[in-house]
């Protein structure tokens, strides 16, 4: 497995080199015949764009979006398919539950940081039940018992204390995000890494990150460009932003 510092360095380099390219220069419309419905006649000057999202890095973001498609196509999704073919469903469910248990730990920590006792006790209850009766998280007993599953991460914690989202950001491999949520991934990741290091034997620990990624992708139905709409990028951008806004308020 690639060691993490160099992986992160590689990602940052990629991001910086992509940031250098802006979005395509806006075409000069006067060079072309006016279309049947031209913006200057149709769109009032004071029109409000309801799907407006602050996205100064659109050019870079769209390139990463494009890159993610190819990564999905040639690496990520074939690996996911292999995983689904090779590992029987009950085992995959176990792995999924195992990592979901860490999400609950993440929620515990962030509920604490948000001074939110309700969510803290809910997630703590889940972790206690699932880590014991649920055999180290392999079985999601808590959900079967109907225990609610709040979901809090460090991006939401920052939002909770008033930190704005910053620019929209498409992360390599991970997809839609924004500066705040992207930064928030780091402490969340470090927490999970720390617990896993304590908990797991060396050979398992080394591959945990890999299996977590495969499991996450397997449970994410989104496929780049599959809506076929030319407006997919801005629709996804708006949906992500709105959902995160609601998640922070929640």
């Amino acid at each position: 497995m690639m060691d993490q510092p160099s992986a992160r360095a590689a990602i940052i380099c990629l991001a910086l080199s992509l940031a250098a390219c802006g979005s395509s220069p806006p075409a000069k419309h006067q060079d072309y015949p006016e279309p049947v419905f031209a913006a200057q006649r149709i769109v009032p000057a004071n029109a409000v764009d309801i799907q407006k999202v602050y996205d100064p890095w659109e050019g870079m973001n769209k390139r990463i979006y494009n890159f993610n498609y190819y990564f999905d196509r040639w690496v990520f999704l074939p690996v996911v398919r292999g995983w689904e073919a090779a590992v029987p469903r009950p085992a995959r469910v176990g792995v999924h539950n195992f990592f979901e248990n860490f999400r609950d730990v993440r929620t515990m920590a962030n509920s604490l940081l948000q001074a939110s006792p309700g969510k803290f006790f809910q997630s703590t209850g889940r972790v206690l039940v699932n880590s014991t009766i649920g055999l180290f998280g392999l079985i999601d007993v808590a959900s079967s018992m109907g225990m609610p599953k709040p979901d809090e991460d460090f991006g939401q914690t920052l939002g909770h204390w008033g930190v704005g989202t910053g620019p929209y950001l498409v992360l390599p491999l991970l997809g839609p995000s924004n500066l705040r949520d992207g930064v928030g991934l780091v402490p969340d990741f470090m927490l999970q890494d720390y617990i896993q290091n304590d908990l797991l034997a060396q050979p398992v620990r080394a591959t945990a990150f890999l299996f977590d990624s495969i499991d996450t992708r397997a449970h994410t139905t989104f496929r780049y460009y599959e809506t076929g709409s030319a407006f997919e990028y801005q629709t996804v951008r708006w949906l992500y932003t709105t959902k995160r806004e609601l998640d922070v308020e929640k």
Partner: protein
Amino acid sequence: MTIADFSQRMVVGFILLMLASFASATVTVKDYGYPLTDRYAATVVGTPEGYEARLPEYIPFKKRWLTVFPERQLPDLLWYGKEMIYSVALQKKAAPLIFLIAGTGAAHNGGKNTNMARAFYQAGFHVVALSSPTYPNFVTSASSTGVVGDAQRDAADLYHVMEMIWAELDEDIDATSFNLTGYSLGGFNSAYVAKLDEERKTFNFRRVLLINPPVSLYNSISLLDRMTQSIPGGEDNFAGFFERLVQGFSKIYKDEDDIGGDFLYKAYKAMHLQNEELAALIGVSFRISSGSMVFTSDVMTDYGFVKPKGLELDRYADLTVYDQVLSRVGFTDYYHDFFYPYYKADYPQMSRDEFIAAIGLHSIADYLRNSPKITVMHNQDDIILEPGEIEFFNEVFGDRATIYPHGGHCGNMNYRDNVAHMVATFTGEAQ
């Protein structure tokens, strides 16, 4: 019971009797238990939990890719759209096969198609689910011209694709018969595909079910276009209206543990939406999906509808300005200022009105009247029909039309009685 109560019931009973005598030919649905009696609410909310058909959670509903036009070169902006995507759920043994065609702007694996796939797979069918010809992926990969909306041409494109899919599947599975259904525009498409099959005879469809189809395409899209005008405060107040919706949504989202099946129903009940607001919501969602179709066609053909002719957009281009224009352009505008001029030369003898009027089930009424294999499932209060248009189905299909008293546009499709009806249509157990 008071006298007043009694006389009121008499009057109601009398009116019902009168109505029943008018609707003699149609199958009347008694004791219909779908809970939403408001046509707009039904259309938006669908079927609340507890009223849905019991269907398997998991079926092997898998995506597949098909290259329909190997030589086709796509503009860079639409570079990803060369292969047509569809879904199948196949039985292991010989079984009847059913094609599903999605409604306007909907994908092969959208919610309604997925539910139907579950129902038919459970009933023992091979299921092949197709996107609507108005879905951008179909426009780029499977439409012969890139400009959709002509019933006959779309049917020919669909038929072509279905033949190609069957040629591939034929190697792996046995189909004991071919069947066809579709909802909304997909129901309309199905009627034309069935008619084409009488000439081409590749499938010799055994049964065909049209679910909530429009009668005249132009009438239906006009109705949907007009719904955007119901935005409280007018179309220019859309931003405010939208903001209020998101806020209402957010309040419910915060109180709910998960956004499960009943989220929409709860949201609807909690937000006390007025009919005009629900209509506006339907109009806007229709406009978003039609807008993305129209733009796809515009870019595919370089017609110059909203994108200046000759301007080449690459895959990273900023599209904000086109999005803004398209949110203000109706589907009827597309018909008049793009679709009709684009095809005018092919039909020199027809006026604009004649051409547009020809796109409707009226034009194939004789075929529909004399085809016992075709049945209809519709709702008396469907919002995409002009007043009186529902009578077309009674008149043409007679007892092959089942008209439910309410359900709006496709709102009751997941209701258990309707799902049972759909399946029984093809298994031959009812009717």
